[in-house]
């Protein structure tokens, strides 16, 4: 039986617990034995990406300690996984600390994004989900460009019973979130969001799905403010769904 430790990033833990719960539902359904190291806090993404990496060196060490003995770590956030797998090695290299470089090299390759874990590690693209709704997939920038998850989420979505996948123009363009960018450059962020909302509306789907709650929080913020009635769901929530499935 495959085993994995859950890494549920702070903003999902606090703001979007349903995405973490959905990931547990899916992984247990396909037979993964899970644990949740409850000492975990935050990977430091927001700090690192805002230029505060010197202030969160302790969070990097904490993360490495918490997941030191985990065979595999799986997380429902492409951007946090990208931080751990891409930025931790950069930070370690910049610090020149040989011990940290080794610790980072030992732990970070084992940290997997949810769809990577299912498709690459477990070889599963059908998780037995059912979701009779129209869906448009937003390929979040950190998932697509930094992690290179490619069409793994789409491969999983295509096997969901009843789902109707829609296309969106300029799907690969950024929604304008960018962490603190959304407040530091709020006007530009809002202009980008307006275009993304227009593209989502053009797709004419009931639900927007992504492998990251951060972009979804942003897109939902625009969709709700404009009272569009289009929902946003994390990929794991769609894969956890068995709506309308035969009992």
């Amino acid at each position, binding site marked *: 039986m495959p085993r994995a430790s859950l890494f549920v990033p702070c903003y999902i833990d*606090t703001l979007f*617990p349903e995405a973490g719960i959905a990931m547990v539902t899916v992984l247990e359904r396909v037979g993964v034995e899970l644990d949740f190291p409850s000492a975990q806090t935050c990977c430091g993404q927001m700090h690192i*990406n805002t230029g505060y990496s010197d202030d969160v060196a302790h969070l990097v060490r904490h993360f490495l300690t918490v997941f030191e003995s985990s065979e595999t770590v799986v997380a429902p956030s492409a951007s946090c996984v990208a931080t751990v797998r*891409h930025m931790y090695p950069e930070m370690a290299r910049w610090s020149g600390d040989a011990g940290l470089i080794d610790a980072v090299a030992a732990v970070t390759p084992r940290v997997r994004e949810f769809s990577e874990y299912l498709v690459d590690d477990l070889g599963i693209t059908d998780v037995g989900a059912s979701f009779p709704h129209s869906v448009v997939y937003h390929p979040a920038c950190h998932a697509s460009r930094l992690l290179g998850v490619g069409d793994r989420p789409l491969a999983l979505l295509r096997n969901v019973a009843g789902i109707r996948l829609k296309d969106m123009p300029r799907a690969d363009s950024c929604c304008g979130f960018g962490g*603190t960018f959304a407040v530091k450059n*709020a006007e530009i962020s809002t202009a980008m969001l307006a275009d993304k909302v227009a593209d989502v509306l053009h797709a004419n789907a009931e639900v927007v799905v992504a492998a990251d709650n951060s972009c979804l929080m942003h897109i939902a913020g625009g969709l709700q403010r404009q009272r569009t009635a289009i929902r946003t769901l994390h990929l794991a929530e769609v894969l956890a769904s068995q709506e309308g499935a035969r009992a």
Partner: protein
Amino acid sequence: MSEQRIPLPFHQAAPIALEDGQLRRNLANVTSSIRSKRAAVTGELPDWEALRDAGEAIKDHTLKNLGHYLQRFEERFTEAGGTVHWARDAQEANEIVRSLVKATGATSVVKAKSMTTDEIGLNDALAEDGVVAIETDLAELIVQLAGEPSSHILVPAIHKNRAEIRSLFIDAFGLDPEALRDDPHELAGAARRFLRERFLDARVGISGANFAVAESGTLCVVESEGNGRMCTTLPETLISVVGIEKVVPRWQDLEVFLQLLPRSSTAERMNPYTSFWTGAHAGDGPQEVHVVLLDAGRSTTLRDDVGRATLRCIRCSACLNVCPIYERVGGHAYGSTYPGPIGAILNPQLRGAKQDHELPYASTLCGACFEVCPVKIDIPTILVEMRRRSVQAERSDRSPRLPSGIDVALRTAAAMFASPSRYEAGQRLARIGQAPFVRKGVLRNLPGPLAGWSDARDLRAIPNQAFRDWWRARAPSSEGKEGDDAE
């Protein structure tokens, strides 16, 4: 780096640019069309990725051995009858060019499109001696007549429309308004007639260079219109201002870069005009051939990996065209010759002005720039390092520019995340603290820097049960594998 004017900082300039409907439409049209063309002409080459790797490797090697290759270039260029000048900074470069122009007695110069001369503010420096610098690249000419800086590395007049260009030409060329319509062919014809006279009169030509070949002492300019070649061949004296990072070791290296550059920049398989010159030749072309090799922050930038990677840039502007931020605010907001993602990492290192500290924040780190960069500069990662340096610079500054609300919030959060018990206390506090802002389950009118969010977006209120609370309630026995609380 001296600029013609002191521009507004990005956070003030960007919102102004956002409200310019003409600019937004032009930018969206040009960038989206050039994006798809670029994707087509790079996608058709089976060895495109290998070319990028080669471009990266050649530049890396050269920049690590730059002293060696610069010396070789100097030897060869001098042997071929040219004169090499070294300029520590913009001021020195301008002084060298001014004295060379003065020696010819010329009162005007014709200029090929050159970012490096923009960077050092050469036109203004020449004007101090009463020397008129005439930009001969059509788009550069348009922005020069308008008294504006360029807004795009490659398409400097991207923000102008035909009607605006027509009225600029009528005023500048002294034309009869009845005789010029805002038709692209007529406009180009008017510029051509004006420029022909300047080319024939010119005694001094000024250019930059895209590449400087060390083994042969050759300079290379890549362009579309042929006006650059007029500048480098017709006048008696030719002065080229070239950044020291433009050196490539061998002639053969151009095989790589002359494929990477046009396909990445104008989305052409080959640019219309590629000019090479090696020193001076009796009876053929300029007889006085000078090159000013410019440092201006480059040798300091070269000291670390991040700086070396940044200086691989061949100024193609592909990163501008794919950048969602640039697409919406254009080039002027960046307040530099070098806008867009490359400007956001280049200016803080080359120039390091106070207002450059905020340029690395003009990005969502979406990574589109890295994806297209022909010399594989990992711009998003370098942006993160530039942000770190910005924070350090702000901390050592007595009048910080970063919004202090964000600074306080991030420092507090960094301490809170240090242990799970503090983090969980923070979660409880946030649930209580949000109460005044919750309306029907949605957070509204958030305070401080968060107002930037809630002005345009809803945010669902923080739920009562975190994931970790759910996990504990569900499976108390499966918590055997906890790390220690660090407190």
